[in-house]
């Protein structure tokens, strides 16, 4: 792939530099946690820590987390592969690449051991234009380039036989290019210079998708600079070193593409003369690009640069006629070299890998290449023909090779990730919501909203209080039992140091809201505390939309006063019309009341404004579920899951929706997926969802088994609502009502859903159900 610079021209600025102080502080806390986890080897996937960030902040955080992870993995001599990360973060190619470049630079200081196992891999991804990849070093740009009027040097990519290669950016166009600075001694005499000029001029005329384009050359004093297309990818030699031999169809496809590039050159009267895996670059789009056209030819003609190993390294791919007389080597020598390359791609080594230099040269001249066992006979005969000693008996043109290989090729496809259309809603990845009850999802949004939009009202909080607060906010964002407890402790400490710290006060209110809503603590324990803190926040700043929102949430979940809750929502709206959270939460208020259309409208607005929030998208699905639009709901959940495959809550909801659709198999698949992915840390939700699925689908024995587990847990935890729905599904109405009664006694935040929850449909005709509706004032 040709790396285009970003339209805003910021391709190479470290995103961290652009962060605000507040954002940088928050990220430091997250990184600290991540590093702690890394040290204890308990670190979750990076996505988990990115939870709830978007835009620049996400990019910057990804950069930090990645740098840390790579650093630690490298220190453990683990293999790190850019490709793995590219699959996970396809929209962040540049960030990933930079992190790998940095790793390479850090891990290979001059004099270090370049064979340390992570080094060549990291280098291979990043220093395509380097021939000697171990030579990556942090080095300031050469003096002759420092003040180049057109190009700004970004960093050195590597050193080859002919000189160093730098990554540079055109000052005006902001296009990235590779600058090859040719060592002056190579062009020592006039003859060499003019020959070089000729070669480069010819190569500059080549424009083909399978050739790295040379843009132009220029002289700066005695030095020649070659400006080339900058290609991001990995050369096939490194690919081989990393992954071993390629599958036959892939190897054939790569060779075929190289042949197409060679054909183009051949039609312009050019040969390459140094085709080998190192000179074939595989881009992220699975495209092969031939490197160093013209240069290789020049080198082979003049015998220059042998001291740097260029020729030596090429012996394994060199046609017999080229070894004896370089000048006689034409395009058919390239075909031979391509044959050797293909041989190596398939078998892992060139046709004559052993022996001294001279012995290998002799083998190329006289011996038949050893048969590769795994090769179909037709393919072997193609390979043999490419490797004929006599040029006249080989394929005469590269296009013939391409044609012959075609039936064995894998169809060209960019990696699925690379071609995947960008999701309409750019994914904020919210990972591992172990236990999430319906309304609780809102809190995710609230917390992120602080992160994104809140400007501190108290500008100078002591550094310690600030730190504690930042840590708490991060822990809340994890949506897990223990971190939430820790967060509450930290927020309490924060408020001891800085009693007027409004953000901390609201965060504390919402932490209690979270505990109550996720069913971690009994409602009586936590919601009164949430209200008390929300009230303090409102008193401190009656103009704070989020303070009113925290209050509205607590009242909505705990108190039976609908009007009071609505009034608080209204205030939150009045103070901040564009509050995504306010719209998001209010949608739930509406749906609880049975205003399904209005609710759907409201939450879709929230989804539109909070464009990247997985939680909101999942909740669009929930509202559709409550509205009985199960197919739409499935689509919404799937969208949320596609944005964050580790989003456990969305999977559970998807499964429950499948149950309503009568698709037990699909529901069970989701449960299984969750277990396979380890999304069962806090598995009460999973048990409850499975029990309900079994109960609905005529498997009462399995359902009751799980029920026993749930009931055992229910003495300490507010699980009454879930248990009641399962008994209702089993048709055990008496027990269902008993548990439903408990739901109300416990003040469960779920009791407001009785009117709309389809899981009660079996009980709705029953006289005993109506009082429950009345109690909520419906």
């Amino acid at each position: 792939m040709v790396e285009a610079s970003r339209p805003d021209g910021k391709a190479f600025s470290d995103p961290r530099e652009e962060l605000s102080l507040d954002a940088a502080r928050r990220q430091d806390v997250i990184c600290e946690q991540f590093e702690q986890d890394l040290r204890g080897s308990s670190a979750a996937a990076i996505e988990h820590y990115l939870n709830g960030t978007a835009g620049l902040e996400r990019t910057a955080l990804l950069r930090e987390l990645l740098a840390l992870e790579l650093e630690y993995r490298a220190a453990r001599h683990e293999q790190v592969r850019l490709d793995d990360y590219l699959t996970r973060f396809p929209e962040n190619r540049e960030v990933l690449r930079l992190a790998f470049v940095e790793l390479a630079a850090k891990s290979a200081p001059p004099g270090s051991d370049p064979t340390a196992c992570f080094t060549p891999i990291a280098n291979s991804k990043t220093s395509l234009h380097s021939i000697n990849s171990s030579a990556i070093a942090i080095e300031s740009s050469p003096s002759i380039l420092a003040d180049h009027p057109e190009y700004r040097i970004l960093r050195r990519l590597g050193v080859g036989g002919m000189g160093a290669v730098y990554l540079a950016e055109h000052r005006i166009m902001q296009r990235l290019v590779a600058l090859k600075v040719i060592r002056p001694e190579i062009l020592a005499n006039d003859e060499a210079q003019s020959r070089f000029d000729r070669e480069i001029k010819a190569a500059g005329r080549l424009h083909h998708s399978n050739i790295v384009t040379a843009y132009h050359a220029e002289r700066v004093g005695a030095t020649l600079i070659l400006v080339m297309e900058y290609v991001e990818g990995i050369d096939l030699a490194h690919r081989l070193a990393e992954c071993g031999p390629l599958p036959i169809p892939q190897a054939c496809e790569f060779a075929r593409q190289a042949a197409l590039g060679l054909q183009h050159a051949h039609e312009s009267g050019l040969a390459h003369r140094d085709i080998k895996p190192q000179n074939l670059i595989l881009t992220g789009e699975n495209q092969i690009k031939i490197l160093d056209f013209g240069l290789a030819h020049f080198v082979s003609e003049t015998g220059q640069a042998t001291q740097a190993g260029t020729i030596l390294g090429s012996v394994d791919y060199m046609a017999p006629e080229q070894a004896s007389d370089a000048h006689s080597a034409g395009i058919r020598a390239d075909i031979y070299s391509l044959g050797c390359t293909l041989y190596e791609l398939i078998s892992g080594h060139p046709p004559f890998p052993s022996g001294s230099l001279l012995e290998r040269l002799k083998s190329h001249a006289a011996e038949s290449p050893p048969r590769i066992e795994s090769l179909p006979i037709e393919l072997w005969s193609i390979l043999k023909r490419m490797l004929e000693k006599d040029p006249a008996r080989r394929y005469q043109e590269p296009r013939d090779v391409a044609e012959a290989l075609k039936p064995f090729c894998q169809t060209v496809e960019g990696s699925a990730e690379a071609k995947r259309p960008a999701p309409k809603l750019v994914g904020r990845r919210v990972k591992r919501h172990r236990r999430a009850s319906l309304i609780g999802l809102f809190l995710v949004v609230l917390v992120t909203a602080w992160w994104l939009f809140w400007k501190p009202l108290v500008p100078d909080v002591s550094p310690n209080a600030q730190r504690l607060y930042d840590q708490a906010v991060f822990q809340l964002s994890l949506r897990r039992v223990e971190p939430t407890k820790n967060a509450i402790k930290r927020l309490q400490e924060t408020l001891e140091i800085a009693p007027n710290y409004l953000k901390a006060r609201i965060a504390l209110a919402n932490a209690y809201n979270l505990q109550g809503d996720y069913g971690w603590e009994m409602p009586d324990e936590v919601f009164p505390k949430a209200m008390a803190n929300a009230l303090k926040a409102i008193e401190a700043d009656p103009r704070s939309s989020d303070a009113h929102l925290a209050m509205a949430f607590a009242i909505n979940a705990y108190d039976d006063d609908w009007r009071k809750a609505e009034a608080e929502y209204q205030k939150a709206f009045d103070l901040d019309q564009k509050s995504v959270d306010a719209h998001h939460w209010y949608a739930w208020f509406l749906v609880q009341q049975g205003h399904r259309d209005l609710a759907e409208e409201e939450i879709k607005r929230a989804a539109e404004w909070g464009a990247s929030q997985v939680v909101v998208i999942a909740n669009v699905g929930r509202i559709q579920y409550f509205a009985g639009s199960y197919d739409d709901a499935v689509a919404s959940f799937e969208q949320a899951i596609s944005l964050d495959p580790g989003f456990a809550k969305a999977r559970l909801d998807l499964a429950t929706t499948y149950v309503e659709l009568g698709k037990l198999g699909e529901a069970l698949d989701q449960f299984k997926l969750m277990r396979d992915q380890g999304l069962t840390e806090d598995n009460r939700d999973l048990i409850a969802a499975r029990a309900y699925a079994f109960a609905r689908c005529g498997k009462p024995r399995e359902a009751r088994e799980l029920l026993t587990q749930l009931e055992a847990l229910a003495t300490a935890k507010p699980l009454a609502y879930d248990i009641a729905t399962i008994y209702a599904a089993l048709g055990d109405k008496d027990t269902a009502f008993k548990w439903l009664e408990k739901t109300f006694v416990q003040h469960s935040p779920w009791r407001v859903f009785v009117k709309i929850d389809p899981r009660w449909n079996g009980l709705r005709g029953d006289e005993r159900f109506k009082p429950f509706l009345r109690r909520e004032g419906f």
Partner: protein
Amino acid sequence: MANSSADASITQWIADLKDGRETAAQGLWELYFDRLVGLARTKLAAATRRSADEEDVALSAFKSLCLGAAKGRFRELRDRDNLWPLLVVLTVRKAQDLVKHERRQKRGGNLAASAPQPAIDIENFLSREPTPELSAMLAENCERLLEKLDPAQRQIAQMKLEGHANAEIATQLACGLRTVERRLDLIRKSWDHFDQQV
């Protein structure tokens, strides 16, 4: 508070320093820094003779400076994470604000306050000898700014002011190199921020 063009020039200057770009200011900075170290040494020596404990706090910035300089740690002045240029710039800015403030007081009116403030000419500034007053202010400013950091950041800042390389700091604190870099960035941001508030 400095006006925006002054900010811009300073930001640019620091950016240039960070990039290690050859600017006139770079050379000036190196000279200036040498003199500053000399000054700090004199102060420290005098203090040791007096053995006055109460001044210890204010002098620790000088200690850091001298300690680092003695071990030759500041040879790489273009180290993009060097905190000294930032400290100097912030102190210079503060000094100039003070001067302006006094002038305003003398003129006794808002008139002067609304007049555009000239940008700080960093090169002009650096070409002058650092004065003992300014170096005292630098030490004081350094302490003030260190206080604005949380303990983890303060530790890194202190080590950095003593001229330790990032990798050394990472080893000593048993954390990732990236963590040191990230915190240094945070330190710079914090100082910039607090400076604007003052």
